[in-house]
């Protein structure tokens, strides 16, 4: 299985090798695939380590309505569906966000995430439905799915020039009652929605 970000993040080693003789090519393919697999794994690992930090940092630059956080002892950072974070997100467990203890949770059904403060939505066919469910709830939605903000997601992670950047749909956040720090806004590649 190939993650969608893989091609954009790293060019395939096979791309420029089409004119090589067959045997040589086969041999090279074998060798490089082994090497590429290792390299690709490492790159992916790095990418998600950064994204993990981003998720944590997003939570710090967004203000949730106070009444929604009151009485809670935890700040739930959730993933929905399949993601490539692996175990990395768990490193955030125990950190403090808005005076709450951060907990990482994994869900497969959108309706399970209603109580989360931040949901990272993995690759899903049901993206539209998920967003619809979470709309107007004080849940910060984040995803690296393409055109996520245009579909009503709040923060979309993307890779530009080998660097991870993000887009923000400020309307979606506002509708959900979330306030996004201007500092965060200033770092975004684009901020959509009426101001």
């Amino acid at each position, binding site marked *: 299985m190939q993650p969608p970000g893989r091609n954009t993040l790293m060019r395939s080693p096979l791309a420029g090798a089409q004119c090589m003789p067959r045997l040589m090519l086969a041999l090279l393919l074998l060798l490089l695939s082994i090497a590429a697999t290792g390299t690709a794994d490492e790159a992916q690992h790095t990418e998600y380590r950064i994204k993990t930090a*981003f998720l944590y940092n997003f939570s710090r630059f967004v203000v949730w309505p106070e009444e929604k956080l009151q009485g809670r002892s935890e700040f739930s950072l959730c993933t929905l569906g399949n993601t490539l974070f692996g175990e990395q997100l768990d490193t955030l467990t125990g950190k403090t966000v808005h005076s709450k203890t951060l907990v990482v949770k994994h869900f497969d059904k959108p309706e399970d995430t209603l109580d989360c403060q931040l949901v990272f939505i993995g690759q899903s066919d049901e993206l539209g439905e998920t967003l619809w469910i979470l709309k107007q709830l004080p849940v910060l939605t984040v995803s690296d799915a393409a055109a996520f903000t245009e579909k009503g997601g709040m923060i979309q992670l993307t890779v530009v020039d080998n*660097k991870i950047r993000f887009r923000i749909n400020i309307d979606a956040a506002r509708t959900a009652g979330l306030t996004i720090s201007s*500092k*965060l806004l200033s*770092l975004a590649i684009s901020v959509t929605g009426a101001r």
Partner: protein
Amino acid sequence: MNIRDLGRVSIRWKLTLLIVTISTVSLLLASIAFITTDRINAQKTAGNNLATMAEIIAANSSAALLFRDARAAQETLGFLKAQQHIQAAAIYSMDNTVFASYRKPGIAIQLPESNIQTENILFWGNYVELFTHINYEGEQIGIVYLRSNMKAIHDRLVWFLVIVAAVLLVSVLITFVLSARLQRIITDPLLRLSAIARQVRTEKNYSLRVSGENEDELGNLITDFNAMLDEIQARDNELMEHRSMLEERVMQRTSELEIANARLATSKEQAEAVARRMEYHAHHDALTGLPNRVLLNDRITAELAHARRQHGMVALLFLDLDRFKIINDSLGHAVGDQLLRVISRRLANCIREEDTVARLGGDEFMVLLPRISGSSDAGRIARKVIDCLLDPVSCNGNELHITTSVGISIYPHDGTDAETLIKHADISMYRAKELGRNKAVYFTAEMNAGSRKQLAMETNLRQAIARNQLRLLYQPKVDISRNTIVGVEALLRWVHPTMGIISPLDFIPVAEDSGLIAPIGEWVLNTAFAQLKQWHKSGFTDLTMAINLCSAQLSRPGFEGVVAKALQAADIEARMAELEITENVAMENLEPAIVTLEKLKRLGVTIAMDDFGTGYSSLGYLRRLPVDVVKIDQSFVREIPDSHEDVLIAQAIIAMAQSLRLSLVVEGVENVRQLNFFRQQGCNIVQGFLFGKPVEADEMLRVLSARSAPGTVNLVK
């Protein structure tokens, strides 16, 4: 200019320099303090500004750091372009890599390693570095680095230095101008004082005064100075007055004397001068010019002969400088010789004119004191000689303190010939050394004998008055122009039953020392005046009575009262009394003698100077004594007219007496040749064996009666 040179600078400049220096130093210190404080403050301010800037950067770059947005971080540093003093800035992420950086265009600066965990501000020579943590929600996420130049601070410092220098310069100028004026408050009076003092010194004009109205210490100084000048001027005037008076008198007398001197100047004397000079060298010490042993011996012999004739006393002082050998050995013969010359000069100045000081050789001196009236005289003079040599002598830069040991021998007590006297003086000098130096010692053994003799004489003398052993003899005084006896001189004799007739020269000193002189003197006065009264009653009404006085009488306070009482008791007019003193008697106690003589003269008695020419023949003293009559001593008369020298002396005395308008009496006229000589000189009053020896009162009456009878023999051929 060093401090020593300052001594020569005038006080005016010193004060100015002082004030300017003090003000400059204080201003400098204040400026240094001010600049230092300002620099510290400026650094603190610069540090604070830099910290604020770093905090802004930290706040603005926190999100960029967290989201690894280097571009955004870079933008947060963008505003530094407007800050001229920022040379470089950087944001480091936690993995110690430069996340974003800024360098002022045109400046190449190596960014430091960011492994600095602590926040810090570092002031280097010409730039400041600041490291500040970037925190987000209590978590350090990076470091801001800022580097600023110190130009602002440096410029400020330079500016301050310029201002301080300008202020210093201006204030020094102002201080200089002010102090140049203010110091006059002190220096002007001082300079006035100094100028006047110098003028007084150079012009000897004591009428100058310093003006000034200060009421401080300077005012007091000026007042005191002026008062001092008042005093000096007053004294000066007084002195000038005295001097001009004296000069006038001396001039008058000098002109009179010149006439007399003209008569003395003979060509024969000039010829003798050369011979005398040659003789001088034979008889004087080459080193000191003092008489040598040869001359001394001559003089001693001469004086002893004289004393023998006159029954007088002569003293020898044997002087030996203490420790002279040490000086000679340690400082050399040149210093020793110089010292001897100085000592010789002092000795010569110290003694009486008739005394002789001779150098015997080495450091031994001998002083011959002829015609002393008692042994105490010798001791007194010896003491004086010792004192004369006490002042330190400067020889080639050495301060030499000289003491002397003196041995005294006296003729006739201690010996009758020069050799014995010198020997005895020498012995007693050694005794003085033994007794601790710087002393005068009489010749001991003989002295004891001397005092025994004196004691015996004193006892006898007491009895002499009671037992009526004192006699008065009378010698006539003749006016040869009228061939009449005009007066008699009373002469005292002591007729001792066993010792025979004793001369007053022998017993008067004893009487003086023992206090017996008062009753003896009164007895003489009363007896003589009573006798005169008798003669007056016998018809010799113009007869005067001359009586000799001794020094103890003269120095006795109220002596004029004794004389007045005696005159009154005998009912004798004062003008009939003539009191005679010898020069030496007068000189012995000059000031009281003058006082007494003047009082006596006010009584109306005549004062005569006896033995004139034998003593301290100073015209100056003679002028001061209220003398009416001068008696030429018989020693000058004896060899007249055979001795040319005596003739000259007699002529000089006669000329002098005429100049000073003094009456003259010639004593000791023994033959007609002498009489004729004095007659030619215009001297009419004479006394001597030619006209009668001293005789008893009865005999005198016979002489008087014979004289006054008509057809008496004219003694003058």
